[in-house]
């Protein structure tokens, strides 16, 4: 029986690397698509609105695990040969974009109507109205929720283990199986997750406070 030593730690850190990478990719992909979803959701066209609402409902209303299965194995069944990375990134981007899109849709709609009216009265076009007026305010308000979701996303990447991804949680499981000290190993894995997620929460709170001080 092995003890918990340097090789095990390095193995966990290797897993951590994939966890962090997958989180970043999902967040960026989800952020870009989520912004489009949010904009579509507040569009003046009822058709676009409904399509975006359906997208959100679909990915919020089904388990992430199922989305992973369907995209990973489903694409293979369709004879589309994609790298596991691409399949997993795809699934997480869809998942994150639905949640971020809905968070941002909410904050966009929470802004006073007068902001849009003032922008319209100044004949600011759609792009400027969104980029200069609506989104900066909406994203600021959404910051706590957005960071909260990023924390969820970080932990949620552990589900990628199911399609063979050796990220942090899966690495922990492997190490634990090797050295038969599940409490110790998963304790350490938990601490690593905590060490990432907790500062993110603090950072979010600080940023929120700083921004509101600037504009108070």
């Amino acid at each position, binding site marked *: 029986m092995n003890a918990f030593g340097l090789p095990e730690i390095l193995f966990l850190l290797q897993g951590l690397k994939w966890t962090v990478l997958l989180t970043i990719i999902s967040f960026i992909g989800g952020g870009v698509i989520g912004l489009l979803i949010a904009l579509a959701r507040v569009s003046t066209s009822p058709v676009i609105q409904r399509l975006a609402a359906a997208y959100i409902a679909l990915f919020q209303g089904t388990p992430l695990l199922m989305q992973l299965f369907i995209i990973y194995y489903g694409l293979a069944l369709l004879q589309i040969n994609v790298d596991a990375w691409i399949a997993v990134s795809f699934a997480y981007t869809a998942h994150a974009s639905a949640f971020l899109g809905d968070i941002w849709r909410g904050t966009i709609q929470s802004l006073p109507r007068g902001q849009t009216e003032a922008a*319209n009265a*100044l004949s600011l076009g759609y792009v400027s109205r969104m980029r*200069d007026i609506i989104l900066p305010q909406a994203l600021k308000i959404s910051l706590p929720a957005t960071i909260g979701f990023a924390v969820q996303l970080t932990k949620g990447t552990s589900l990628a283990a199911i399609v063979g991804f050796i990220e942090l949680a899966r690495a922990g499981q492997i190490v634990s199986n090797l050295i038969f000290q599940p409490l110790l190993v998963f304790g350490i894995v938990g601490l690593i997750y905590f060490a990432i997620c907790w500062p993110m929460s603090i950072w979010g709170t600080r940023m929120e406070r700083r921004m509101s001080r600037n504009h108070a």
Partner: protein
Amino acid sequence: MQNTSPLNTASMSVSENETLIELKNINKWFGGFHALKDISLTVNKGERIVLCGPSGSGKSTLIRCINHLEAIKDGTITVAGKEMANDAKSIDSIRREVGMVFQSFNLFPHLKIIDNCSLALRRVKGMQRDEAEVIARKYLDRVHILEQADKYPAQLSGGQQQRVAIARALCMEPKVMLFDEPTSALDPEMVKEVLDTMIGLAQDGMTMICVTHEMGFARKVANRVLFMADGQVLEEAAPDEFFSAPKHERAKAFLGEILAHN
């Protein structure tokens, strides 16, 4: 100029005869509520119109139709010779001629005062930042608030914010200014500074349509007072005539109530 009915057409002659705004048979519905009933109004260049009437009478809705913050069901709107069609380009070209000041200021809270004023110059007129800021400072100075240029809206009093809102609209050099109850949200001690700014504008020859119950202001600057109720213009007269001898029963009742609180 036609003079069919003094109640729903605006046809008083003023010194300058250039028509700036022409509303013809405007109808506006909110669901089943007929908010504007066949309203026609002609505003000549340099005219100052005051719209008053009980709440819900359609006066705010009327001026919000002029720059298409509200869409009308039928009728025609012509501003500075351009007839409004139902497409973005036509609406935009009219909005460029029309400045608007809102009851609740609607400044952009995340932008400094100077950026509130210069943003549209940069984005709509394509100016460089420094060029836009020169103009913004000129109009901030005109409303006597230049020293606040680098602050954020929330750091200013209500009266100051409303003056910034006026400057922001003026920056686009509109041909007409619409005021939608500009002093209704202000503490009493701040009303004067905003009204003084508006009086200054009027003296400089700005064409203005003001929804307001400030009768002192109306007497001082208005060419015409239009009294609205139930989506119709019930009475139209010179301010002195309107305030001293209103003809319509609704106007009498309305003035009675306003005077009771003044």
